[in-house]
């Protein structure tokens, strides 16, 4: 039951219809039940893992708060985090480490036995594990109090709009919204929620899925593609992954808003960033801020000299890469970002434009940043490191070969949609009161004009009709 399927639309409509007929406590019970139903619809076998992890997290939180003995508190938090990481290690990384160990043995001339544990990755495990770690650590740091209501804690972990692909929520972001009675959304909020759902669906089905077909074809035969063709394929993937993931997040936020919740932004026009530092403040914000708060800063952050800062950056980004998947390609993707962030830090020229509107004079920096991001995407998308290297070399040498011009046409059609909406959104986010050069933004968001809004919705529906049909394509980040 993916967000881009009709069963999910029916599910969300029923849940929204029922939830506002219930009292607050019953709303939470109902939402927890339907969240488990939603998760069980993927694979009911892993529901026990989710529930078990929730019970342990809830119990550990209360135990942690119930003692002031530092040693005992440390033991509780360490064992809880270790258990979380152990679950991740078994389900997500066991096969990778075994295969790497065998390859390592063979590389030094020792015989290794190919072993596969045939472990299936439970969906959402990376997301709820990180949320539970932050809950336990925040209690340990005395930043929050333990949640005494098991239903509320269960809902914090399993709330279905964010369960399978985030945003990775902090306890402070979601628990108060669960514990306090929520206000039924008025007409404007319902419309804005439906707008998020529609725009997210367009980004996923129209933009991401269309570009995905081109990326898949181009990346399936990197050796026969020209350097230009592979560059187009990489641009397609850059658009695909942004449309796919930010589309999912928009739909998650829209669904949550219908249910009276407000989820934080997970993307803030990342491809308008003028540095990698800015990129990581705007791309998958909930993961990057989690890594900053629970990994980078505890490692020492930038407080222990330049060398240590470099090591910390590289460590955090490599682990961030491995969070996405157990593979060398993800590790290298993280390492590229780590090295690039380190280089920016060394040069002292990291320009953070996240709080300013997109300006023409920033364009060279934006393009350079985007190029580095795309270079890293090659490793993220390619099935093997060898393929990724082939792609990079063929692009760099402008190798001759096949060029899928359809990719250029589709990028010319769909790319501007993303760029224009990002530029307008950035302008509005930076200063909601400032008149926007384009009248599109205020016209839609502050003084919605019926004809223009209707035209845009009509175009969106048309695009959805044309690009839909067949089985819904799963979201990329569901696999992480």
């Amino acid at each position, binding site marked *: 039951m993916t967000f881009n399927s009709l069963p999910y639309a029916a599910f969300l409509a029923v849940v929204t219809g029922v939830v506002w007929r219930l009292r607050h406590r019953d709303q939470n019970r109902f939402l927890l039940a339907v969240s488990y139903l939603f998760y069980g619809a993927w694979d009911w076998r892993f529901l026990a893992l989710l529930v078990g992890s929730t019970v342990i997290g809830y119990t550990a939180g209360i135990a942690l708060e119930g003692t002031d003995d530092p040693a005992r508190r440390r033991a509780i938090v360490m064992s809880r985090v270790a258990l979380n990481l152990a679950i991740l290690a078994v389900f997500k990384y066991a096969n990778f480490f075994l295969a790497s160990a065998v390859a390592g043995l063979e590389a030094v001339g020792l015989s290794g036995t190919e072993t596969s544990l045939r472990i299936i990755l439970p969906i959402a495990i990376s997301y709820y594990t990180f949320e539970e770690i932050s809950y336990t650590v925040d209690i340990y740091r005395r930043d929050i109090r333990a949640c005494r209501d098991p239903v509320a804690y269960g809902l914090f972990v399993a709330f279905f709009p964010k369960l399978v692909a985030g945003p990775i929520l902090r306890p402070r972001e979601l628990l108060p919204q669960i514990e306090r009675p929520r206000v039924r959304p008025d007409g404007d909020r319902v419309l804005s929620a439906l707008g998020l759902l529609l725009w997210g669906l367009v980004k996923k089905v129209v933009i991401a899925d269309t570009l995905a077909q081109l990326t898949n074809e181009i990346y399936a035969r990197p050796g026969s593609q020209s350097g230009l063709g592979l560059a187009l394929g990489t641009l397609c993937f850059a658009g695909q992954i942004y449309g796919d993931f930010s589309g999912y997040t928009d739909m998650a936020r829209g669904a949550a808003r219908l249910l009276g919740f407000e989820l934080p932004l997970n993307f803030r026009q990342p491809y308008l960033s003028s540095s990698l530092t800015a990129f990581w403040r705007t791309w998958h914000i909930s993961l990057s801020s989690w890594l900053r708060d629970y990994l980078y800063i505890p490692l020492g952050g930038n407080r222990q000299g330049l060398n240590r800062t470099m090591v910390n950056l590289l460590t955090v980004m490599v682990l961030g890469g491995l969070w996405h998947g157990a593979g060398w390609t993800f590790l290298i993707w993280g390492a590229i970002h780590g090295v690039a962030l380190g280089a920016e830090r060394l040069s002292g020229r990291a320009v953070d434009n996240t709080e300013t509107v997109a300006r023409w004079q920033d364009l060279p920096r934006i393009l350079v940043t985007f190029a580095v991001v795309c270079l890293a995407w090659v490793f993220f998308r390619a099935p093997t490191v060898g393929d990724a290297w082939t792609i990079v070399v063929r692009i760099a040498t402008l190798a001759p070969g096949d060029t899928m011009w359809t990719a250029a046409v589709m990028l010319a059609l769909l790319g501007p949609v993303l760029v224009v909406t990002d530029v307008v959104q950035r302008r*509005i986010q930076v200063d909601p009161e400032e008149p926007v050069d384009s009248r599109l933004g205020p016209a839609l968001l502050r003084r919605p004009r019926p004809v223009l809004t209707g*035209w845009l919705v009509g175009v969106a529906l048309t695009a959805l009709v044309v690009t839909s049909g*067949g089985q819904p394509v799963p979201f990329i980040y569901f696999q992480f």
Partner: protein
Amino acid sequence: MAQHSVVRRPGWGRRFALSVLVTLLVVEGAARVVAPYLEPVGRWPRADYTGHEKGLAARAGDLDLLVLGSSVVGRDISPDRLRDIGGPAVGYNYWLAGPPMRSIDLLATDVVLQRVSPSVVLLGVTMREFVDGPSARAHLEALRQSPGFQAASGRLGWIDRLDDRLQQVSVLARHRTDFRDPVALVHNIQAEPLVPEQLGADGYLLDRGDDHLADEPAAHVAQEQAVMAGYEVNPADVDALRHLLEVLRDRGVEVLVVNLPVTERFIAMADDRRADYEAYLRQVRAAAEEGGAAWLDTMDRPWPDRLFADVNHLNNQGAARLQPLVLDALERLPAAG
């Protein structure tokens, strides 16, 4: 994101809804202007299926003879001609263009045999139906996913029914695969329209009857070469044959499996040529005999090139030579005796 105060005037909703509706109607109108220049899109993957649906409906009820197979049997065997020379009275040839045996089995068991109860089934085969590859997989997938097949086999879920209904109402939705790719759309508009195959009332493939091997279009040769490259008998297709025969045996239907004539040039398209052909013949014959079907190998006699319209379809002259052989085999079936 910053919250904005939203200002809407009275009548906003009506004007908004009207604007959405007008936009949808304009786009649908534009699609209807372009659609005549595109290949017609039916509920089935190809127009042949639609033709067979009509043809089979016209001969509804108990058939004496049902012919199944690819376009080779479609071109080679005419139930009406068999009738004219003393064969079964009512017959129909439900052939498919370029199918693997899996598609024939799927369509026959889930659709055709749900509608008609034939006394005899003649299954025409060549080695082409027993090879796996992108073409075979695409054929099977297109058949499985088509609303026509899903509706006919009772597999249409509520979402598919909605989409099917939408496609019947909206040209934009029906031609969505054309409109999805602007480059292909322009190419399709400029391309010569495909002329659907002409079917007789008995389903017989009327086209190519006057053709000769020497005039065969290069595109057809290339298409067949692509299918036959790297030939290996696909066990899944042999299993599909076994399954179809089992279904027919359970229904008490007499079956004649006919190895149809093809040219040496066609056999040579397989990598190991004769060896591949012999492997195909051995496995398919064994499956036919295990399944209780009668076996007719028409390749046990020479078929000069002049009898062929192309590498694997007989022309009218060749078909005229084949019909008596088939009739003779049909008359030797136990039920006929």
